[in-house]
C-alpha cells in the first residue's frame, strides 16, 4: 500500500470480534488513503458486514481500535461514527418510506422542537449538496414513490448532510439495475473528486474492478490480502476470496453414470422483490455420478437447491423426476419430493437443517417424522426414535453419543453428521447436498466424503453444492459453474483446474480466452 506521510482517512488496527463460538473478525488491519475508493470483497459470511458495523458503531470490537485522519476515535454508537465523519449506506435502506426526501434527510438532526426552521435550513443545504455532487433529486418527493436507485441517492445525501467525509456502502448494487449501478459508480467517482473517501463492500468482482483504487479481500473473518486495483485481476481476487485449502484427496473409481434420475429445464425463480435469482438453469443428474456446482456463494446455488427440493416454488421451468413432471403450475412441496426419494442436506444446518432447540433424537427425524417407523397409531414412537438415533450416532461417530442432548450443544461437525446421517440413511435416489463440510473438522470431512462416494457407487445420483473448490474438484465427476443465477459453464472433473474454475466463477473465462481483459 502507498507509503506517504498523509494520515489515512481511516485506519483499523487489529480489530477482532467474536459472537459466541464464531470469530466474525480476527485481527483486522486496514488502511484507507483519503480521497480513494476502497473495495472490500469476500464471500457471504466472510465478516465484511460485521467489520462495517464495527466502524459504524453498531457493534463494539472486542479488541483493536480505529483511527480517523490519524486520530484515534472511540466509536460506541452510530452517533459517534457520524461525529467522526463516517456515513453509511446500508444494503437495506434505513429510510422512512412515507416521509419526503427532505424529512428523511433531516431525521435525527431536526434541531429544536418545531420542524420549520430546521427544514428550511436543510432545504438550502441539500440543494447545495445536490449541486456540488451532482446528485439531482426532488427534495419534496415521497421516498416510497422513488425508484430504488434514487432512494439510494437519498441515503447518500443523508450521510453527506451529516458531514460524512468517509462513506461506507454495503452491497450497494444488490438492488440496482445495471444502469442504476453504472450511475452509482459515476456518483462515487465525483464524490471521490470532491475528496470523499469511499468504502465499497461487495462480493461482485466485476464492479469492484471497475470502480475502485484499492481492494482488500476478506475470508473467514480475516483480512487475507490488500491489492492495488490496477495490479490485480478478477482471477486472482476470486482465488483469494475462496482460498486455497489443504489439498483433499478422495479415493474413488471412475463414475459409471447410467440413467438420468433428474432433469431440470430452464428453472427460473424470482424472489419476493421480483429479482431473478435463478436464470433458466438446465441440468441433468445421472445415477452413479456426483455433479458438483461450483460458484462464489450467493450466485444462485442456494436457490437452485431450494427449488429442486421443493422448499421454494419455481417461477418457470420444469423438473422431471421419478416419473413425475414438476412445473410452476404443478408444484411439489418438500414432503412430496422426499416421498419420491429425494434427500436434501441443506447448506445451513442451523437455519434449515435442524431445530436446534430439539433433542438430538427429535432433530434426527426432521422431515421424516411422518414415516411409519417413527409412529404408532396415535403417538410418536419415541422408543424407536431413540434406538435408531443411538445406532446412527455409533455408526457415524457422533460425539457425544447422547440422543437426549440438545442439538444446539453439539459441535458443528457433529451437527452436520446428524443431518447427513438422517438424509443418507433414508437411502434416497437423489441426494442434494449443500456445503457438506462447512465448519467440519478434517477427520469428519474424510468420513463425510467417503459416505458420499459410497452412495454414488451404490448407483445413486448426487448434486453437490460447495464453495470449496477443492471439495468440488475432489468429489465431483462433472462440474457445473454458476454465476449470477445462471449456469455459465460445464466441464468434466478431469479437465477442471482451479484457474479455469476460478475464471468461470468470475464469469471471465470466455472473455479472457478471447483476449478481452476482464
Amino acid at each position, binding site marked *: 500500500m502507498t507509503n506517504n506521510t498523509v494520515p489515512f482517512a481511516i485506519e483499523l488496527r487489529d480489530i477482532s470480534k467474536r459472537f*459466541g*463460538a464464531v470469530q466474525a473478525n480476527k485481527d483486522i488491519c486496514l488502511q484507507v488513503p483519503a480521497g480513494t475508493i476502497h473495495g472490500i470483497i469476500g464471500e457471504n459470511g466472510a465478516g465484511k458486514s460485521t467489520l462495517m458495523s464495527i466502524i459504524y458503531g453498531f457493534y463494539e470490537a472486542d479488541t483493536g481500535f480505529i483511527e480517523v485522519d490519524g486520530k484515534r476515535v472511540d466509536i460506541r454508537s452510530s452517533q459517534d461514527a457520524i461525529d467522526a465523519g463516517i456515513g453509511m449506506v446500508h444494503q437495506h435502506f434505513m429510510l422512512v418510506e412515507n416521509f419526503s426526501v427532505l424529512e428523511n434527510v433531516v431525521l435525527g438532526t431536526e434541531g429544536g422542537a418545531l420542524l420549520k426552521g430546521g427544514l428550511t435550513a436543510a432545504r438550502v443545504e441539500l440543494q447545495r449538496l445536490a449541486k456540488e455532487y451532482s446528485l439531482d433529486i426532488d427534495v419534496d418527493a415521497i421516498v416510497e414513490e422513488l425508484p430504488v436507485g434514487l432512494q439510494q441517492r437519498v441515503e447518500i445525501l443523508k450521510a453527506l448532510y451529516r458531514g460524512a467525509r468517509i462513506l461506507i456502502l454495503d452491497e450497494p448494487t444488490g438492488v440496482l439495475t445495471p444502469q442504476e449501478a453504472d450511475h452509482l459508480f459515476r456518483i462515487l467517482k465525483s464524490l471521490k473528486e470532491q475528496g470523499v473517501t469511499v468504502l465499497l463492500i461487495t462480493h461482485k468482482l466485476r464492479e469492484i474492478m471497475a470502480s475502485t483504487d484499492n481492494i482488500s479481500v476478506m475470508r473467514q473473518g480475516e483480512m487475507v490480502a490488500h491489492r492495488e486495483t490496477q495490479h490485480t485481476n478478477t482471477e486472482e481476487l476470486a482465488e483469494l476470496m475462496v482460498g486455497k485449502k489443504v489439498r483433499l484427496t478422495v479415493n474413488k473409481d471412475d463414475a459409471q453414470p447410467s440413467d438420468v434420475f433428474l432433469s431440470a429445464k430452464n428453472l427460473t425463480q424470482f424472489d419476493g422483490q421480483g429479482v431473478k435469482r435463478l436464470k433458466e438453469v438446465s441440468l441433468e443428474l445421472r445415477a452413479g455420478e456426483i455433479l458438483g456446482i461450483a460458484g462464489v456463494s450467493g450466485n444462485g446455488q442456494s436457490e437452485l437447491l431450494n427449488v429442486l*427440493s*421443493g*422448499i421454494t416454488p419455481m417461477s418457470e421451468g420444469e423438473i422431471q423426476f421419478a416419473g413425475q413432471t414438476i412445473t410452476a403450475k404443478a408444484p411439489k*412441496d*418438500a*414432503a*412430496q*419430493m*422426499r416421498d419420491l426419494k429425494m434427500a*436434501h442436506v*441443506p447448506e445451513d444446518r442451523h*437455519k*434449515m*437443517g*435442524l*431445530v*436446534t*432447540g*430439539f433433542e438430538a433424537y*427429535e432433530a434426527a*427425524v*426432521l*422431515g421424516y*417424522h*411422518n414415516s411409519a417407523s417413527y*409412529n404408532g397409531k*396415535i*403417538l*410418536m414412537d*419415541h422408543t424407536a426414535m431413540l434406538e435408531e438415533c443411538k445406532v446412527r450416532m455409533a455408526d457415524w461417530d457422533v460425539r457425544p453419543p447422547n440422543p437426549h442432548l*440438545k442439538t*444446539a*450443544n453439539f459441535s458443528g461437525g457433529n451437527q452436520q453428521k446428524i443431518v447427513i446421517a438422517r438424509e443418507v440413511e433414508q437411502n434416497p435416489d437423489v441426494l442434494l447436498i449443500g456445503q457438506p463440510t462447512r465448519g467440519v473438522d478434517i477427520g469428519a470431512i474424510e468420513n463425510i466424503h467417503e459416505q458420499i462416494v459410497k452412495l454414488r457407487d451404490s448407483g445413486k445420483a448426487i448434486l453437490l453444492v460447495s464453495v470449496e473448490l477443492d471439495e468440488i474438484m475432489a468429489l465431483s465427476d462433472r462440474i457445473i459453474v454458476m454465476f449470477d443465477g445462471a449456469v455459465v459453464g460445464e466441464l468434466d472433473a478431469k479437465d477442471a483446474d482451479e484457474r479455469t474454475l476460478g475464471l468461470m466463477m468470475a464469469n471471465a473465462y470466455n472473455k479472457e480466452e478471447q483476449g478481452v481483459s476482464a
Partner: protein
Amino acid sequence: MSEAKVPAWVNIALIPFLNILLAFIVSGLVILAIGENPIEAAGYLVYGAFGYDEGIGYTLYYATNLIFTGLAVSVAFKGGLFNIGGEGQAYIGGLGVGLVCLALDHTMPLYIIAPLAIIGAAVFGAAWAYIPAYLQARRGSHIVITTIMFNFIASSLMVYLIVNWLKEDGRMAPNSRTFEENAWLPYLHELLSPLGIDIGDSPLNLAFIIALICCVFVWGLIWHTRWGYQLRTLGTNPTAARYAGIDTAKVTIWAMLISGGLAGFVGINEIMGVNHNLLLNFTAGYGFAGIAVSLMGRNHPIGIVLAAILFGALYQGGAELAFEIPTITPEIVVVIQGLVILFSGALEHMFKDRIEGFFIRRAVA
C-alpha cells in the same frame, strides 16, 4: 450454548420464585402506604386461599378457568403464535355451552347434555379462533391484531344475542333463563359427599377434572404426536419446518382451532358449572390472565396448573383480604394481582439474564 451451563432449577424454580417475591414486596409497600400491616394482609390472603376447605374450593374453581385459558395460550405459543383472543374465544365458547343447555335441558339427561355442551364449547371457541387463524395463515394478517379485535367483536355479539334473542321474557336482567337442573354440571362437593368425603361448599365442579384431563391431552399432543412435533418445529424454526415439508398454514390453523377450543371450555366451568344461565361478561378477564399463566408456567401443562393455582389463590385470597381489612378495597387487590402478572409475566426477563449470567460465570470459574 449458555443454556447448557445454567442448572435447570434456576429457570424452573428460582426465577419464578424471585419474580413472585418481588411482586409481593412491592405489594407490601402499597399496603404499607395505605396504612395497613402487610404481614397481616399476607396472612389473610394465604388463609383465604388455602386455609379452609371452602377457600381451597374457590381457589381451584378460579384456577379451572385459568388452566383452560393458560393451555389455550400455550398451544398457540408452541407454534409461534401469540393468541391474545382467549377472552373472546372463551366468551363464544360459553355461547356454545349455553345454546346446548337451553335447547336440551327440558328433554335430555345430563349424560347426554354434558358431552354435547363440551363439544359445543370446543366448536364455538375454535370457530371464533378460526377466522384470525385463516387470516394469518393464508392472508398474512397479524394474529395479535386480529385476535384482539375479535375480543371486541365477541363482546358486542354476545350483548346483542343475549339482549335481543336469549333474554328471559318479561325480565330486565340481561341473561337467559336458568337451565333446568339436569343441565347443571355437578359440584365436586356433591359428588364426593356420598363417598363420605367432605370438601365444603364451593363452586368447584366437574370442569376442574376436565381441565386436568385437558392438561394430559395437551401434554401428549405437543410432545408425543406427529402433529405436536410439526407444531414445535414451526414454532422454533419456521425455515426448518418448510424444509421438512410441513404445511405451515395448516398447522397454524389447527393450532389456533385447538387453542380456541381450549379457551371455549371456560364456558363449561362458568355457564354449566356455576351460573347455570347464559350471562354477560362471565369471562371476567380469564382469557387475558391466561397469557400470564402460560408465560409463568413456561408453556408446560404442569407449570400452567401451578401458575393457575397461584392466580386462583390471588383471586380467592384477595377477596377474603378485602373482606377482612375494609381499607384494602377490591381495587387494591386488583393492584396486587396486577403486580404479580407484571413481575412474573411482563418482566419475566428482568432478572433472567443477570441470574443466568451469574450461574454461567460461576460454572466457568
